[in-house]
């Protein structure tokens, strides 16, 4: 059912892969449940080597582990066919079995040798979601995952303080309201900290370690 290869109807002659705004789908994928989960982007069938072409230079192979268990040789053939085409080559694995460890290990190795990036999805929805985001983000600059500078005060304070282990968002709020500023928090004594609600010994120790211990030793 999740098999990427279809057995039934003969393939309709593919359209010329074209406009660039659609995901181009290998006709082999017809019948794959993932197709229904690709939303918010255009889809068209086309004659390509990969299963899905989500960008000018990005090709995706799709593999369900269930299928892989039955036909372990299939993916190797596909990878071989892929040759050196595409800049970014992705193997989208649908993890739909419980004994996934060995299969994923083996596939990881194969992919690293063949310069393929592995993505693991855990449901058809997720797989479809990956495909559509890959297409949508084709020309998106990586700002979303880059270091950001313009964040508001509270957000920075929260990330800064929660970087200390055991400190959670509520604690940040407690610290902020009790001491006012970051500098004042740094100056707080262990006793003051210990008497805040929700602050145990370990947490206080961690906070004090971060602020008061030397940042590096003189070895």
């Amino acid at each position, binding site marked *: 059912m999740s098999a990427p290869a279809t057995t039934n109807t003969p393939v309709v002659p593919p359209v010329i892969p074209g406009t660039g705004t659609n995901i181009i789908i290998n006709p082999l994928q017809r019948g794959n449940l993932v197709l229904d989960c690709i939303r918010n982007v255009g889809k068209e069938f086309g004659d390509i080597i990969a299963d899905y072409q989500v960008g000018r230079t990005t090709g995706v192979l799709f593999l369900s582990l269930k299928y892989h268990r039955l036909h372990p040789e299939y993916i190797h053939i596909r990878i071989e066919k892929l040759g050196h085409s595409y800049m970014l080559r992705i193997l989208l694995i649908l993890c739909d079995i419980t004994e996934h460890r060995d299969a994923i290990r083996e596939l990881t190795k194969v992919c690293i040798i063949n310069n393929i990036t592995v993505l693991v999805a855990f449901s058809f929805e997720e797989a479809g979601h990956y495909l559509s985001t890959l297409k949508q983000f084709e020309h998106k600059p990586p700002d979303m995952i880059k270091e950001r500078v313009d964040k508001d005060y509270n957000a920075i304070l929260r990330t800064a303080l929660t970087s200390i282990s055991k400190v959670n968002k509520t604690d940040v709020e407690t610290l902020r309201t009790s001491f006012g500023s970051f500098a004042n928090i740094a100056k707080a004594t262990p006793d003051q900290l210990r008497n805040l609600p929700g602050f145990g010994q370990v947490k206080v120790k961690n906070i004090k370690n971060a602020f008061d211990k030397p*940042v590096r030793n003189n070895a």
Partner: protein
Amino acid sequence: MSTLLPFHKAILERIHDPSTSDLLVLARGLGLRRIIGTLMKIYDSPQSLVLLVNATQEEESEIGEELGIMGCRKPGLRVVGYETGSKDRQELYKKGGLISVTSRILVVDMLQGDIPTHLITGILVMHSERVTPLVLEAFIVRLYREKNKSGFLKAFTDQPEHITSGLSPLKNIMKELQLRKVHIYPRFQEDIKKSLERRRADVVELSQALTEPMQEIHHAIIQCMSSTLSELKRSNTTLDLDDFNVDNAYFRSFDLVVRRQLDPVWHKVGPKTKQLVNDLGTLRRLLYYLLTYDPLQFHAYLETLIASNSTTASGGVKQHQSPWLLTDAANIIFQVAKRRCYIMTSGSKLHPPPVIDLADDEDVWAALDDVENAPTGTSKGRETDARPPWIPGYMEPVLEELPKWNLLAEVLQEAEEEIIRQESMKKSITAVNTGTNTVLVMASSTRTCSVLAEFLSSMDHDAPRGSKGRRMMLRKLRLYLWWKSKLAERKQDGKSHFALPDVVGRAGDGFDKLYGSGDNISEALKKKDREKAERAASRRRVRGGAPAAATAREGKQKAEDRESVMGEIQQEAQSFADFWESHSQGTSDMSLILEDDLTLLDFESGALENEFDTHYGLLVPEQTVLIRAYSDDTDDRMLAEIQPKFIVMFEPNMEFIRRIEVYKSAHPGLAVRVYHMVYGNSCEEHKYLAGIRKEKESFERLIKERGTMLLPLLEERREGAASSDAIIKTISTRIAGGRREINSQLSQVIVDMREFRSTIPSLLHASNILVIPATLTVGDYIITPEICVERKSLSDLRSSFNSGRLYTQCELMSVHYKTPVLLIEFEEDKAFTLDVVSDLTSYAKPIGKYPAKKKQCAPNDQDYTVMLQPKIALLVLSFPRVRIIWSSSPYATAEIFKDLKLNNPEPDPAKAIAIGADDDPEVGAGVNAAAEELLRCLPGISAKNVKHVMSRINTVRELCEMDIFQVQELLGMEPGRLCWEFMHRGEERATKR
């Protein structure tokens, strides 16, 4: 130092032999630390090198001190932390003696050969109940046994309850520690029984009933718990939830049990179940707080609870409210908790307070009646006390007190009388040392301790039962009110960060509308004021100073309407002073008691202790009342030092009872009387009894397991065998004739020092890969000269996506290595999935119209940035060369690494260290990881200049104390300003006000 009891000696007799390795399981409270201390003293000599592993910092210092007392001083126990440089460490190891080492450092030193492993005389492992195949201690033992067969290994634990999960937990621990002998000493063991039951302490058990309102709340909480539990059962029918009953839910470990059961399906359970599991924790905490917090604090906590439950962090109205909040029982909790503090009347300000309608609710009003009538009955000077001017007219303070407070007061009274009685009798027999007259009060937390200290120091001795702490309660009430009004101001300014929910606002209740973050502040300030008040209260001359001090600071912060407030406050302070004046001029009887009152000391806070010395110098121990919190084995020494004649156990504690038994048996001449206080028919009593039962059961299980245990055969791990094994594995028959050259080098992986916090190095080593620790600038693991791996656990992944750190790391890896790899590691027993969001369709949508949609669906938008999948996709698109390894557990990771190493050349450590490190002048220096992380998050400090900053400053605190010019000098103009403004932002606002 106190003498060892016969059973201590028997234990030592059995385990001291340095040629054997043992595991000792001792019941808590029987003096495990004493045994370890004695053992270490036996082993102490410059010729031997004995390591103490897995001790916490406190334990290290305590054991060190204990050794010092026993006369093992030069050099005694030395502690190796990350501050000790590697050269110093080598020196230290060479000199021998007793050394306590952090596990992480020891592993690295063993791997690097900084420590002569074959010369180690022995290792002592503390907390061995926590040893699993994944922890560093198991790794240490493996490394140790590889090179050293003759040294001993002694493991200790006093937490048998921990060794119960799994099929044969004891065996697993012994296997990991490579031990064959275990000694189990429960409290019911023959020797221990004999030693302890010869002399029994004089125990008075006091069972205190809860007050009516408390009972009501208690009952309601239990009701909420059981309804939450049944809800949980109903929504998770597939799970084995037999253990899910209210009895078990009293314990903290219950959360763990639930989580362990739900973890594999955690992604499937949905937000509702998660909420329920959280709620159980909250309810359990509530139960505990009910019995320990004063009513005002409890009420304030409930208010925060409501507020935080009805809003999300971003201020929107929360979708999934905890179901128990909507039950009738919860309503009872909130209503009664409020009634314990005050009652709102709709009457005008001029309405005289003492007229109270008793018909309404007998139980609660009776208490109120009691309180209200009290002041008028006792003295005329207390009129101000009955109705202080700062209480708004429509509010009737009830201020119920915890019944145990009064019980404590009575017990202290009794102890005092006893002391006087004995004093008069003792004159004849002076020779015998019967201990000091100190009264020791033990409570469960430092918070309770400080409340108790405050109560005792401001106690009103001739007030009737139930209102002795009225003065303290009023003070607390005022702070509470002040904060509420402060919150009101804040709200009007529009500066509140905590959006106030409409749900909780009640008409006609001026104060109750103002819930929010401020309750936390009040905690801190309360504490400060309390400290001041305490200090002042213990000095007779400045008695009136306490409220004055408090008001002074209040006045400062309320600069705007200072005049009116100050007037009011001063007037009030004056009235307090007047009141105390008249009070102390009372009968001579009274002043005598006050004198005693003065000696109340709170040793908990160090600051107070210092103050104490400067103000008083030495004090006759006769009259001191010490209030302390239960701690670990340190209590043993405290008992021996203080030698109290009276011990009040404010809350039940099994371990401490044993400590008293041990203390009593070790000091035969001393008389001890123990008052043991429990709230009858409460969760406290139940918890105490269940705790005892649980410990007994786990011991029985352990003994049974020891009887039937199949002793693990220890696998011999010879280095030669290991490598030949590896060779056999590398030559595959598929390679024609095995023509490939045999790799004589043991396969190796270079691991970043910081990664030793994770379990992978240990597992890599277990699978015969040589682990080389190094300080890497780029990547975490170097597998081959071309493959560099950055490991991220799921939470790491999320945070480093948010901070942008991952992007920088990938950038760096791509520059320096041919195959940069991101390893996404899931946890062993947890689900192998990313968070599944129920409706993915809606998240893929808004991308094109992102900005337009933003305002309409704020919560959606929030989730969108939280989701990992789009970010992973973007990362893959941005770095086409970065590969991703999806690993379901550390075990799988080790296997994959091994796979990747096949047929590949070995990495070169020197090269790996050099990569990317050229701009860092101090490669290899120990780094305070927490501080580094913190610095990175500050604005103006980026991955590029963090190293520079770290080399310039000593501590983060130092950075905070710099002025703006210094920071600008450090970071440059614009980033410096940003950073400085960030650090000092809250202050400016405070001073402007």
